[in-house]
């Protein structure tokens, strides 16, 4: 065949040798190679710089430089009063702070919420640090004792603590209660469902598959509506379930189905020999799972589990649609207050709530990454 019929992607000339890699070169050379080699890359860099400046400068200006730090009403946050361009109106956050944190929890009882937070933090922090001692006792205290204590502290009605109805709860308190309950119950439910889905019994398997796929196939908001409006109809007429408890049931069922799929991923990654070895040792089903399979499987999927927790934490915002005022719900309610109606109130509120959501979610995702790296090091050995 003639040269012309040669496929076009084959070079006809030998290439010039490329310059040596710049890894060891000076910082300026490296920067130039990364950012300014060739017209296209230079253009990209310049456009990026413009975008970064256009985003970061107004944000910093709004949050700090132009911000109003003290004041008692909307007057202090109007540019006519201040005499310059006005950024974030922080007095608005200060005025609404208790509402954002506790909702309408009675002011004289708010110490109970604080004690619960403190207790939770004291137990959680050592649990998250791999080097901290006595993980077993710590876990029992956090997952077994703490929920009971927190329940009685928050609800009251015993030991002389006045009863606080859940419809008075709100703000970050509700966000954290829903997240924590969801996390606590969805993991065991997910493990059971995942075991059921991998079961050799056809009826158990079918029931679990239907359950999982049903909850995963519908949006969370329909689940919350189901829990709020349909669940009371399905229960005996004399059973009264608290509105918050109904939402919790919905969240747990929904999150459990997602958790089941994460755990199933871990179960599938365990080699068959582990099952066979456990059976050869004479272990029954529950001991085989509890002592041999699950400890390995759950370790494999820790990042996936934490990702589910992050999703659950973000999804708690949806409860505002069924009239339970979590942090976002309280924020929305605060916007309607005419004493703080200024052009900057909305942005201030979103900036404040956004920071809380971001810090918690980002913190969890970084922790997942940290655990993943740690586990990978162990496996590499």
């Amino acid at each position, binding site marked *: 065949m003639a040269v012309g019929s040669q496929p076009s992607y*084959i070079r006809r000339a030998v290439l010039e040798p490329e310059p040596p890699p710049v890894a060891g070169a000076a910082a300026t050379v490296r920067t130039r190679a990364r950012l300014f080699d060739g017209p296209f890359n230079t253009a990209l860099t310049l456009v*990026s710089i413009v975008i970064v400046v256009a985003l970061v400068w107004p944000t910093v200006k709004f949050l700090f430089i132009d911000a109003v730090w003290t004041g008692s009403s909307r007057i202090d946050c109007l540019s006519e009063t201040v005499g310059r361009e006005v950024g974030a109106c922080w007095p608005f956050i200060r005025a609404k702070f208790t509402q954002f944190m506790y909702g309408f929890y009675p002011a004289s009882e708010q110490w109970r919420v604080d004690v619960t937070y403190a207790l939770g933090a004291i137990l959680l922090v050592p649990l998250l640090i791999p080097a901290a001692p006595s993980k077993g006792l710590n876990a029992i205290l956090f997952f077994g004792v703490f929920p009971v204590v927190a329940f009685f502290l928050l609800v009251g009605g015993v030991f002389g603590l006045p009863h606080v109805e859940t419809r008075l709860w709100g703000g970050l308190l509700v966000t954290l209660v829903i997240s924590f309950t969801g996390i606590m119950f969805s993991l065991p439910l997910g493990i059971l469902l995942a075991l059921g889905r991998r079961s050799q019994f056809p*009826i158990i398997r079918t029931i679990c598959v239907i359950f999982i796929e049903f909850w995963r196939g519908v949006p969370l908001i329909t689940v919350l509506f189901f829990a709020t409006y349909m669940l009371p109809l399905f229960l005996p007429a004399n059973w009264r379930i608290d509105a918050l408890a109904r939402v919790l049931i919905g969240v747990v069922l929904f999150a459990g189905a997602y958790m089941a799929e994460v755990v199933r991923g871990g179960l599938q990654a365990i080699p068959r020999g582990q099952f066979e070895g456990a059976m050869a040792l004479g272990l029954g089903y529950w001991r085989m799972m509890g002592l041999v399979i699950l400890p390995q499987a759950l370790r494999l999927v820790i990042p996936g589990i934490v990702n589910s927790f992050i999703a659950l934490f973000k999804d708690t915002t949806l409860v505002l649609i069924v009239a339970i005022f979590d942090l976002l719900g309280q924020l929305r309610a605060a916007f309607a207050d005419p004493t703080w109606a200024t052009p900057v109130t909305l942005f201030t509120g979103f900036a404040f709530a956004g920071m809380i*959501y971001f810090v918690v979610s980002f913190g969890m995702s970084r922790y997942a990454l940290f655990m993943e790296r740690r586990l990978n090091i162990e496996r590499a050995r």
Partner: protein
Amino acid sequence: MSIQTQHALAPPRVAIYNRPRIRAVCYQLLLLAAVLGLCFEFALNAKANLDAQKIASGFGFLDNTAGFGINQSLIAYNESDTYARVFFVGLLNTLLVAAIGIVLATILGFFVGIARLSRNWLVARLAGGYVELIRNLPLLFQILFWYLAVLGTLPPPRQSISLFGEIFLNNRGIIVPAPVAGEGAGAVIAVLVLSVIATIALRLWAKRRQIRTGRQFPLLWTGLALVVAPPLVALVVMGFPIGFERPELRGFNFVGGVRLLPEFVALLLALTTYTAAFIAEVVRAGVLAVPRGQTEAAFALGLRRGLTLRLIVVPQALRVIVPPLTNQYLNLTKNSSLAVAVGYPDLFAVFAGTTLHQTGQAIEIIAITMAVYLAISLFTSALMNWYNAHIRVAER
């Protein structure tokens, strides 16, 4: 046969309730009985509760007059229509926002995902910052932010922000020019469709010829010419029958053009940017999953950068990308139900929201709504599974 003989010789020493088979059957029957019993109990309670509240069950309410207006509908609708029509209006609105959202989120997501892998340090960091910021904020937070803080603080119609004098932004929405089809527009569209079909046919022929003879065909340029030129000629011949109706300010509002509701725009913006951040991560993982040796081998064979991407990296990355991408599409569709928070009339807002509150038929309405989302999910999964099987590596 031999097993039977063994059994006959040595009768089992285990008690009947300890035999694995018997136990397996018993456990399963017990669970089945518990589930069925629970369902039965629920049904009994539901019947008793409904009777006590004097709510008629059944789907008869679908034929009743709805009596409320909907501010966006793709099919003709007015207040005297039935709840069944409300259902279809809502369903179409859901599908509309989901379809547009999926297309935009895919484009943005691929763009950001590739940018995250850029050799340019600043571009990669910028894309990374976008992904981290968006992924760690709740979607509902973002919808409300766009709706209340961004679109809600736009000026009233008389002080609209104008883009190029054609698009107007104000607190009642975004007004864009509307395409108007005049006489002969059908012919132009027909020519366009024919051109596209001809291009596809040409592509098939060119590919077959290349496989047979090895000769390549300049497909890009001929294809572009084929798609652009005939419709242009048709436009000129028919005397430009397709025009744009420009919005104009009359009094306090705009006349003409198409008005996109602020609810729709806020929902679309939030869904697109949110899902794009997740798609970007999927794309990045997919590209990283292709071993570096593949790219190096392609370079060694003399393939240029673009061809390496198109022929070597993308086909292999797609296999990794498609399953999680499907999940993101489903998430977007399900998340569109958050429209109810801003009042965009999607299926959930008009049906499980307004209709439920008007009729009180909680069981029927929530069951229908869940069934629709379930059907969409299962249908999309089935479609994507088929596609996934189609592009799978043909193994021996």
